[in-house]
């Protein structure tokens, strides 16, 4: 949704240089300050994790710990990448929960059979996500409805489909699938993150990537210069759905079973990851890599709390506080940057 609080404060939150850079498509040497902040937040969280870990166990986290952290974070990482694509166009996707639940149900039912069938379903599940996402995109683009409302409605539809596919928690996943997707003894998780980073690096340099930023910065202007706005939107929502499907595969591989409500918690956490990663909810500014950093930071916070000996009941409290503080830090950084620019 477009920033509705168009009061004087809201304008100050927009970094004019980042905005212009995105719109003209000029390649920047450094990521935008907000994305950098996402990396800084992640670095701080990793440091806190290592610190508290050492405090508890008298040694630093082992590679095994890091691979398990990465495996645990993968579903949120991919959900956040999908969400970030939608947010970059100025939208928001609440149906991430429904699409993930549906895909988790399909994965839990079909990823425990012969190798041929399993390989087929590893492809089909993300495609189901992509189709569900494309439906969102068509409704947003052709129906001209607010993304938050469309995805609120389709969330209910996809939740229903998920319940139809897998009425209650269950299903199973063959050990081979877990070995391939979430092996704690080998850094396969890191490889998937690297693949995602590489895919993003290529995508944002394509015409499609530029169109996404153009659309998010100023839809009317993008339309005026000939960006096929409707087609780009459908593709963005479909790509987001594909990411949710992949997230569902990683979720199922890690938990080795399915749950028709599996996706619910990813609605708010994926938005939080995107915001911590420095992507502007108004669209057009930020990077999916920030969302990846945000997703890792949010996942790590849970481990930090564990090693800090804090009651798990307070987990949501610290995640919420973490989100607000990270965003306030972002505003402070922007203000400082403006001040410095103003004096020089």
């Amino acid at each position, binding site marked *: *949704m*477009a*920033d*509705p*609080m*168009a*009061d*004087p*404060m*809201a304008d*100050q*939150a927009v970094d004019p240089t980042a905005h212009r850079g995105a719109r003209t498509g000029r390649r920047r040497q450094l990521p935008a300050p907000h994305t950098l902040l996402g990396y800084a937040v992640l670095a701080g969280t990793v440091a806190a994790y290592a610190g508290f870990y050492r405090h508890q166990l008298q040694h630093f986290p082992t590679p095994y710990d890091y691979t398990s952290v990465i495996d645990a974070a993968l579903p949120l990482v991919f959900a956040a990448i999908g969400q970030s694509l939608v947010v970059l166009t100025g939208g*928001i996707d*609440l149906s991430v929960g429904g699409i993930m639940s549906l895909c988790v149900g399909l994965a839990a039912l079909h990823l425990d059979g012969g190798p041929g069938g399993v390989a087929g379903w590893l492809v089909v599940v993300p495609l189901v996500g992509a189709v569900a996402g494309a439906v969102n995109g068509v*409704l947003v683009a052709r*129906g*001209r*409805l*607010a993304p*938050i*409302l*469309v995805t*609120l*409605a*389709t*969330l*209910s*539809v*996809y*939740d*229903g*489909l*998920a*319940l*139809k596919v897998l*009425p209650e928690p269950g299903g199973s996943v063959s050990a081979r699938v877990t070995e391939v997707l979430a092996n704690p003894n080998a850094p396969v998780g890191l490889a998937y993150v690297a693949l995602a980073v590489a895919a993003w690096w290529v995508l944002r340099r394509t015409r499609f990537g530029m169109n996404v930023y153009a659309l998010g910065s100023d839809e009317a202007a993008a339309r005026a210069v000939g960006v096929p706005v409707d087609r780009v939107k459908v593709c963005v929502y479909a790509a987001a759905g594909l990411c949710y499907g992949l997230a569902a595969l990683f979720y199922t591989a890690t938990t080795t079973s399915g749950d028709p409500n599996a996706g619910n918690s990813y609605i*708010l956490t994926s*938005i*939080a990851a995107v*915001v911590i990663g420095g992507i502007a*909810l*108004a669209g057009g500014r930020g990077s999916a890599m920030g969302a990846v950093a945000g997703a890792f930071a949010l996942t790590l916070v849970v481990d930090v709390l564990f090693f800090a000996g804090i*009651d798990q*009941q*307070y*987990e*949501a*409290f*610290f*995640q*919420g*506080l*973490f*989100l*607000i503080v990270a*965003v*306030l830090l972002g*505003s402070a950084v922007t203000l400082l940057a403006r001040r410095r620019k103003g004096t020089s």
Partner: protein
Amino acid sequence: MTDTVRRAATGGWSRLGGNARRVVYAFAGAVAIVVVGALVHPGFASWASLRGMLVLASFTGLVAAGQMFVVLVGGIDLSMPWVLNAAAILLTTTTLGQDSRTLWGLAVALGAGLAVGLANGLGVAWLGVSPVVMTLGMNGVLEGLSLGLSSGLTCGSCSSSAPPSVRAAVTGYLGGIPVDLLVWAGVAALLSVLLSLSTFGRRVYAVGNNPRAAFLAGISVRGVTVVLYMLSGLFAALAGVALVGYGGQPSLGLGDPYLFQSIAAVVVGGISILGGRGHYLGAVAGSVTLVAIVTLLQAERVPEYGRSIIYGLVILAILLAYGREQRDD
């Protein structure tokens, strides 16, 4: 400057025509669903059945009131689920089920709602945090505090239930009408007066339509925004009190369904998500529509997955039907 204010005010009056039209559409939708229900399911429109639906709709209607206030200025309140839940827990743990402590309990529960709203409003209006982020973070903060401070609702006073007076105010009858419905009717009347006849109402629409123009017209945009978020917190807490009066005891996750319901009721009621357009009476009709759809599907023994799918499709259909109208004005 006074001239500008007056012009803003007259603009408000002419727009009321559009708002009235939206309210009529929303009520027509609610009536249509009930008529369809009565046709396919005899007894659906009986007083007993309608009464049950209206009581359920009143809970949605209360959260929708809060959501409407922030949506009218283009904001959104995602902290409603745990404001509601926290208020429900606070009411029972402070009253310990005793009537003598009811007032104290109500003050604590509703005060907490106001305080959370104040924090949200200050964050949005003064610190420039996006409403989605501020209220999403606040929801997490409240969830963690509710779980942590009550040790997952296992604390000593957590097993107490709502005092009889609060229960009677929700489930009791006055002249054959549930007291809860009378309260809701009172809230609807009060909010209608507030929105349509008071200066504050005019300011809300002015800020929602064009914050900059409202600011230049001498309206404290930030002040209005903060008050609206406080009202949102207050109504979420009120819904929590009503729900715990209805059910007797609070549960964890009590408020979870009400976030999306509040947004859906507001939108089905013809209140523009972009702000500045709509009226509480529309949200009332929207709440009734949503509850009527779910009740009808339950009466038809549609399985849960089917209910969820049809619910989503109906909201989509309503959105598409409204979409054109929203673009035109």
